[in-house]
């Protein structure tokens, strides 16, 4: 699998998009998701926690009690002596929400789920009665929308993204105008200035795989030569041939795609977990395509892209930080510290005005040993960012 395919699949989850009344809940967060409880649950009187005992036998696997209030439910599963029936599952219709398997006689285990009100089934394949009803009563689980701080965070993020895409439109129009006017040197300098805005919001833009492919696709992604369009296609001509000849159509198309993106971005509704995981994706992008020099293989302005991805991740983290500080101050500290370490590592390569006015040195001049130092900082930051979603939602 190419790195591109990998991140696109992951990033498709970065945002929820409302298009023509269709709500695409991209990445879970619904009642079916089993998850560990958060500290907020403990403080929250509405959230309940129950323990349900399930003894599996050749006869059945009836839960005790058979009815619990909505909230965190821990299932203690034990096998007192059945060699035939060795597992129990909690089903919601056909979907397995949680299970404990391979419980040979005498063994026990457990699993914990966050459950909304509804009818469920405890299922132990092989027993005389394989399915027993299990009921969860009460109100629906609280969602992030009940937390004003998280609602604020999603609004802040949406406003920021819209602003960045507006800048992207302005920058791209200036860039494509220079390309069409045949001003090669100007175009090279405007290229990075436009792109950095894309790099900041890449995790959102990639929701639309086709637009993203047209704007930001690499030569490796294109099925045929004609499919290679957008920034990197123009980049190739500008730096390899030092010419703008014949790039007019590509420039127009890039401009149109970016305008299209601006329209679409305004219909995105963000979820806190998606914002957090989008930040992880952005930091992963640094590791998979900037550190390697894969992204800007002709222009070598990768450090400016690095800067863009890092700033985008930091923005996403920043809007969530007030909530994260409350729910997991230690993680909030770690994330802030590792962001600083990454920013400091990058800063070592800052230059004014820098290579192609990018604010940084030519990335092809950065040695493997230096790249490794950058990579280590990025990896550590990404690892901490990847834990945010589970803490805030």
């Amino acid at each position, binding site marked *: 699998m190419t790195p591109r395919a990998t991140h696109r699949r992951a990033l498709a989850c970065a945002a929820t998009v409302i298009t023509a009344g269709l709500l695409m809940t991209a990445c879970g*967060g619904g009642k079916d*998701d089993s*998850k560990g409880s958060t500290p907020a649950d403990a403080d929250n009187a509405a959230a309940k926690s129950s323990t349900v005992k399930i003894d599996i036998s050749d006869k059945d696997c009836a839960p005790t009690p058979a009815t619990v209030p909505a909230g965190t439910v821990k299932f203690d599963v034990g096998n007192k002596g059945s060699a035939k029936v060795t597992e129990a599952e909690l089903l919601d219709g056909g979907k397995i929400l949680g299970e404990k398997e391979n419980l040979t006689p005498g063994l026990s285990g*457990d699993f914990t*789920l966050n459950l909304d009100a509804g009818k469920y089934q405890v299922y132990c394949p092989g027993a005389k009665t394989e399915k027993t009803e299990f009921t969860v009563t009460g109100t629906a689980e609280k969602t992030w929308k009940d937390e004003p701080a998280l609602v604020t965070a999603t609004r802040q993020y949406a406003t920021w993204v819209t602003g960045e895409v507006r800048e992207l439109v302005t920058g791209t129009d200036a860039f494509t105008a220079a390309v069409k006017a045949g001003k090669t040197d100007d175009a090279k300098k405007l290229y990075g200035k436009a792109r950095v805005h894309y790099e900041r919001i890449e995790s959102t833009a990639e929701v639309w795989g086709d637009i993203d492919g047209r704007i930001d696709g690499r030569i490796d992604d294109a099925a045929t030569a004609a499919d290679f369009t957008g920034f990197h296609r123009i980049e190739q001509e500008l730096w390899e041939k030092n010419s703008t000849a014949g790039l007019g159509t590509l420039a127009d198309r890039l401009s149109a795609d970016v305008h299209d993106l601006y329209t679409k971005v305004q219909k995105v509704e963000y979820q806190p977990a998606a914002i957090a995981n989008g930040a992880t994706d952005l930091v992963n992008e640094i590791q998979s395509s900037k550190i390697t020099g894969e992204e800007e293989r002709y222009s070598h302005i990768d450090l400016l892209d690095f800067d863009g991805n890092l700033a985008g991740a930091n923005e996403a983290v920043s809007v969530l930080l007030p909530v994260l500080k409350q729910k997991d101050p230690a993680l909030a500290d770690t994330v802030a510290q590792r962001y600083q*370490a990454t920013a400091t590592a990058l800063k070592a390569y800052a230059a004014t005005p820098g290579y192609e006015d990018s604010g940084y040195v030519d990335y092809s001049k950065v040695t493997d040993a230096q790249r490794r130092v950058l990579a*280590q900082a990025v990896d550590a930051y990404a690892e901490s960012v990847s834990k945010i979603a589970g803490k805030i939602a």
Partner: protein
Amino acid sequence: MTPDAQRDSGPATSAVSRRRLLGAVGAGAAVAGAALGAGGTALANRDSGSGSGAPTGHAAPATVDFRGAHQAGIATPSQDRLCFATFDVAPNATRADLAALLTTWTAAAEAMALGRPVPGDEGDLNTPPDDTGEAVGLSPGRLTITIGYGPGLFDDRFGLAARRPSALRPLPKLPGENLDPAVTGGDLCVQACADDPQVAFHAVRNLRRLGFGTVLPRWMELGFGRTSSTSPQQATPRNLMGFKDGTRNIDARDEKVMGRHVWIGEEEPQRWVRGGSYLVSRKIRMRMEQWDRDRLGDQQDVFGRYKGSGAPLTGHSEFDTPDFAAKSGGQYVIPDDAHIRLASPENNKGLRILRRGYSYTDGIDKETGDLLGGLFFIAFMNSPDRFVTLQRVLGAHDALNEYIQHIGSGVFAVPPGLAAGQDWGAQLFG
């Protein structure tokens, strides 16, 4: 998982930081491991079997005790596979960071040694799993995780200078070596051995992941085909030159010999490291193409043994004691520069070390197409000077030198085993 351990990892403690959580789980798991005993073995056998739950007749249990007087992975009968990695402490990491990581590592290592995943939250679809998952369903494969500390750790960065084990210092330049800094040294080392390479790799991978931001990986080596036996019950394996190379190794079950040669004892002023050992690693490249073109007679003279039987050139069977005085036609039967002569205790004032090496390969040389590989030598001893003494002789005179080169190196103080409730952080920092 036992109720106790589960309670610790359950919702009640999820408010604490992950590192503290891991510490708590570790303590729970320790108690569970001690209390379970036979049950743990039964579970392990079940895991290593066909999955039917029937006894497999597997003589060795699939788990090795994590805690004890000495760290596992030294006297433990050699497993088939190795994953070895060294780390440097990150430039911005503090004493507290390092101590916290060692506590976290203890909990994770103990869980993995029991065949369990790295403890943490399970099943949150919005968060990466705490365990990377590739060892789930595999037998623990007698996994041992052994930690060691390089000389650099005891500089002034973490206030550990006063706790430096007295014999721990970088190895001197040794004859014939050509060390690549990219596979040499490190502040910490982790030796993971198991009968399944995926289990050993999983262990190092997860410790590395937990170490993000605190330690930076320096180098890593995968080993296969153990090249020595640490118990006569194990057949003597062959190295990549096709020779039996561990016949006269220390029997690690012999407490007296281990006490004299391997375990750090009363002679060490640093009490905290008594019961530990020193680990010396050497990445030794073999020039396999050249070796394979050497005539059998010369190959046998280089080692001082018969290639087929493994017997010394003065004997008939593998375990015959070599007769270093025997001559034929005025020449020693076991030549002056034969490997077993130069390495023997008889010719080194009784000096012995416990070898625990593995074969390795890094693929092929991209310029020549020659095989890259050889011996990843690991040995334990109560002072690195023992290795230095031996290697000064071998590096200068060993006939084998024509076909090998030492290209990587490491020396680490290996702390003693952990007592119940103790962790590596508290052990190191006191």
